[in-house]
Each structure stands twice: as structure tokens, then as C-alpha cells.
């Protein structure tokens, strides 16, 4: 009961922040509010028992993304405005609203948040021995690591992590290529 209250207030906060980000005309303000959105998201991840994800969001949202966005603004111009918010683009709202409503029809068929009788836990689905169950039961004996997320990341699905590392590498290379620089600093 109390948990859901926390979650709902968080959801409201996140929604407000997202809408404010979308509507701010001034880019700098939008970036700042997006920072607030990231904060709310990190708390929600934490609340949904994903501390690793929340930590990444913290390091990325508070550290890297915001800084890069700000740097871009500093490197380019920021148009001065007298209006606080963008004018709402009605056709876009209609299109997006329709999109969201169509997606909303999927809601009844999705499994409730936090239920243990979902296919990923081997119930109501086809698989009985699902990876999720296996990881939780065998992580420690297989790998010697307590954090199942780390174990999956580095061992079971090490190739994904390899891809992730390559993505980061590729991003560094891509930025150098785009800006036509040969040195890293």
C-alpha cells in the first residue's frame, strides 16, 4: 500500500518533468528540467529494485548526458525568447495521442507490474525453466559473484557487454570522425 503510494507520486513527478521538458521553449531550461526527469527516473528504477540501472542512470543522467547537452548549447547558440513554452502543435498532439491510445489497448494483455505468475518466471508461459529463474538460483555457484546482474553482464551474456564496449568505442570514433579530429583530446 505504502509502496504503491510512493510509486504513484513518483510517476506523477516523472510525467510532469517530461511534459515540461517537451514544452519548454528555452533549450537550456529544457535540459535542466530533463535533469530533474532523470532524477525521478533513477528513483523509480531504484524503487523497482533495479539498483544497477538506477546507478547507471545516475552516472549517465547527472554526469554525462547533461554535460554533453550543455556543452552543445555552449558551442552553439541559444535563441533568446520571450515565450516560456512552445506553442502546442495540435496535429502532432493528435497523432501522438492516437499512438498512445493504440498502445493503451495493449494494457489489458500485459502482465501486472510485479506479479510472479508471468512467463518470465515460468508460469502461464511455455518455458518452465526460464533464464530469470536459472540466474537467480545458480549465479553464485556458477560464477562466484553475488550480484546476479554483474554475473549475467560479464559472464552469461558477456557478449552483450562486448557489444556494449564496442558501442562506446564506436561512439568515440564516430565523434572524432564527425568533427574531423584525429586526436582524442
Amino acid at each position: 500500500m505504502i509502496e504503491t503510494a510512493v510509486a504513484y507520486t513518483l510517476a506523477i513527478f516523472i510525467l510532469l518533468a517530461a511534459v515540461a521538458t517537451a514544452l519548454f521553449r528555452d533549450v537550456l531550461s529544457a535540459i535542466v528540467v530533463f535533469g530533474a526527469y532523470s532524477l525521478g527516473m533513477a528513483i523509480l528504477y531504484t524503487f523497482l529494485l533495479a539498483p544497477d540501472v538506477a546507478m547507471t542512470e545516475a552516472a549517465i543522467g547527472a554526469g554525462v548526458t547533461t554535460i554533453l547537452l550543455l556543452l552543445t548549447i555552449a558551442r552553439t547558440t541559444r535563441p533568446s525568447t520571450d515565450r516560456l513554452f512552445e506553442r502546442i502543435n495540435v496535429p502532432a498532439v493528435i497523432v501522438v495521442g492516437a499512438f498512445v491510445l493504440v498502445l493503451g489497448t495493449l494494457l489489458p494483455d500485459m502482465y501486472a507490474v510485479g506479479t510472479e505468475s508471468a512467463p518470465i518466471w515460468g508460469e502461464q508461459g511455455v518455458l518452465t525453466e526460464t533464464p530469470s529463474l536459472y540466474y537467480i538460483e545458480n549465479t553464485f555457484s556458477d560464477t562466484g559473484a553475488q550480484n546476479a546482474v554483474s554475473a549475467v553482464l560479464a559472464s552469461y551474456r558477456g557478449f552483450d557487454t562486448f557489444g556494449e564496449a564496442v558501442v562506446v568505442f564506436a561512439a568515440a570514433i564516430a565523434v572524432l570522425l564527425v568533427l574531423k579530429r584525429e586526436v582524442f583530446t
Partner: protein
Amino acid sequence: MSNADLILPLLVAVPILMATAPIALGLRFDRTGWSVTALTTTGLLAATAYLASAVYSEGMVTHELGGWPREFGIQLVADEFSTLIALLVIATATAVLAYMRVGGPRGNTFYAGYLLLTGGLLGLSLTGDVFNMFVFLEIVGLATYALIASGDGPESAVSALKYLILGTVGASLYLIGVGFIFMATGTLNMQVLSEIMPEVLAQGGQNLVLMQAAFAFIFVGFALKVAQWPLHTWQPDAYQHAPDGVTPVIAALVSTAYAYALGRLMYTVFGPEFLTSTPYLTEIVVTVGCLSVLAGSTLAVIQTDVKRMFAYSSVAQFGLVVAAFGLVTETALIGAIIHLIGHAVMKAGLFAAAGVIAVSYGARTVNEYAGLADNRPFVAGGTALLLIALIGIPPSAGFIGKWYIAVGSVQAEMWPVAVVILLSTMLTLAYSARLLEKMYFTPATPVESPHPSAPVATDGGHEGEDGDDAHGSEHSDESAGDVGASAFTDAGRIGRGNPEAVSLGMLTLVIVAAIVAVLLGFAGGELYDLLDPFATEVFNE
């Protein structure tokens, strides 16, 4: 051949490892990128050939990464389909290097990006895990955006950003699809999914609805990535403004790999039974494909910039492939795969030819191609051959793919598809004929090219006409009037462009692509036999 499976991770890891080499060596030496890349791709080509011989003689080869069983780890899979794509990727990547030696962009970071693209494409074609596929989609995407933006013109950055935003949305939609698959089944492995799909179908209900939602997201995501009408808008810009050396790779491989991924997901993960049993599914897929064929071909006809024209032609050809995927018959599937391969070879050749012509003849628009055959007979000949193959005149790569698809559509009793194929052939004929006519039957006009002093090959060509409008001819005429006959040097030969800038490698690439495109037409039956085990397995499961 027991250890052929060890090649699989090497195919992905080695190009990426070697991508660090130009960077590390770049601290000391200036230009090492090309040699490192050439060495790597050649080695990989040999390895892939070895792998292919294993796969086609003994069947599927898999590699469990980390030694974990496939349910819990990630698996690399080389079956008849993916090996063919891997072979195509690595062969094209090696061949296009011949162009880049002289004509392409240079620099160590560029070659690092090129190797990353190669590694990503190989990973994309070999992976057997739906989420791992997302990771490789994004590696390929990042490398592609970077390579497009490595062009000099300001337009290249704009088109790369457009591609980035739309491509990211496409990949994100795919990721949502993966989420729905995971929610409905709890697993991410393609083979496991293909094994449990019949049960999910039998069970029906909630899980099936989730799978249908997953399919919808994945299909829309890939429609964006493969550039299906009306989500194709990024593609012409990107192809046109990428450096001349990069366009062949991107046009030949990137969309092809995405189309492969779509086919892989549709047939291995969801399976024919799911496709046919879901109401309206095949109809929608076929309609999207056919619309792309018609729209792409029509738009290609009215283009004036040659690279842009070829780009719209790609929209049409991929539409054909998607439509063939939607037919859900064995013949159509094999036809789609063959068309994918043939199209890749033809487009690599055509875009390379466009690059060669831009350098050596200073021509970027259709009108500027006038008199090409007299002045640059080899390139013109190669281009003509490739165009004929693209139209689909037998025996050529273009014909054989279309033929199987048409046969498949008859089998599936979807007659309109056959009509669309015919129509698209007509339209292809229309724009190819325009180009051929200019090249062979229009004498060179004394036109001072808008590129006065031999633009380097890296020029993205942004000054060429870029709209969908037909102003091109007017523009050329105007500049002709402005500058007058000052550039007219010799009676028959036109002194524009810089033939010396074309190396033997660049020319060879065009010629070889043309020859391969024709040979593929003869080899159609053999290709069919090679792919038959895959199709049979998919359909008889």
C-alpha cells in the same frame, strides 16, 4: 571440420580488435589505416570462405559464447542464410577497399570506423539472440552515421543526423518488440523461440497477443531501418551525401543486413505458422512492400542526381524483398534472399561507378552523363551492364531474384505482387533507360560542370541538385549560358573531370561488380540449392 565454430566469434572480434590498430599506430605513423584494413578483411574473407564450406557441406554451425547453454547465454549461429550474408558482407567490404585506396576518405579514424562497421555487420548476421541483435544493430548504426558524416560537405552532417534520429527510433521500436517477446516467453534466444512458437500459438490468449504486438513493433522498426515507404525519407539524403567511397558499402550492406535481420526474425523467431495464422499480417507486409516498390520506382524516375536516383531505386528493391518476405512461401523466401544478394552487388557497383564518374568526368546529374560512353568507355560499359542487371533482363542477378519472387507470389495466390514486379521492372527500365540514353546516345554538351576544378572524391556533392523537382535541366542550361563555351576544349572530348584521379582499383571494382551481377544470374539455380535446406527447415518445422 570440428572446430569451424571457433571461427564465428573470431569473425566478430577480429575486425573490432583491428579497429584499434589504426588508432594505436596512428600515434606514431600517419597512414596505416588502409593497409591494416585490407589485411584484416582479406584474412576474414578467407576465414568466412572456410566457414562457408563447412556450413554448406555439413549444415548449421553454432558457437555458445562463454560456454553457457543457449538458453542462458548467447549463441552465434551460422546457417545457410546467415553464412551467405556474412560472405557478402566481408567480400563487399574487401572489394570496396580497392576503391578507397585512392578515391575514398582517408585517416586513421575513418578506417577504424570502417572496421567497426564490418565487425558490426558480421555480428548482426551471425548472432542468434534477439537482444544481441539490437546491440549489433546499434553498432552498425553508429558506424554508418559516422561514415556518412565523414563527408566534407555540410549536407552530410544534416543527412547523418536525420538518419540518426530515424534510425534510433527504428532500433528503439525493435527494442520494445524484444521487450514484448521477453514478456511473453521469458527467453531471448532465437532457436528456443522458434521451438516454443508452435506451443505459444496453440496456447493462444494473452501471450499470443503480446507476440503479435512484438511483431508489430519489430516490423515498424525495421520498416524504418530498411527504408520502406513512407519511412524512407532518410535514405536518399544519406546515400547522396555520403562520401563516394562510403556509399557503395552503405548501400550494399547496411540495409541488406537490416533486411536480413527482418527476414531472420520473421522466419526463425516467429515462423511461417505465426505469419499466416495472424489475421491481416501477410497482407500488411505485402502491401507495405508493394507500396515501397511503386513509390520508390516512381520517385527514382523523376530524380536528376544520379546517386539520389539509385537511392530511390534501393527503396524499391527493398520493398520487393519485404513483399517477398510477406508472401510466406519457400520459393518467395529464397527469391528474396537471392534478390538481396544480387541487389547488394549491383548497388555496390553502381554507386562505385557513380563515384568514379563524378571524379573522372565531373558528372553527378543525369544530364551531365551525356557522352560518357565516348569519353570513358570502361566505366560506361560497367554501368550499363549493371543497369541492365538492375532492370532484370535475363540472365542477371536482378532477373533471377524477381523471377523466384514472382513464382512465389503465384504459389501464394497473391497475383497483385506479380503485377507490381512487372510494373517496377517497367519503371526501372524508365530510369535506367534515361541514363543509358544519356550515356550512349546523347553527345557531350559543352557544359561547364558546376564542379570547376576536379572535386576530390570525398566531396559529398551537395551542390548537385537536391530537390525532388525537375529543375535540373534548367540549372544546367543556365550555367551553360553563364559560363559560355570557355570550357570547351576539344571537338569530341570533354576536358572536365580528372581521369588521372581514378585508380585501377576503382575501375576494377565497377567491372568486377558488373561481371558478378551477370554471373549471379547464371548461378541462380545453385544459389537456390544452397538455400533450400534453410527454407525447408523453416517451413517444415
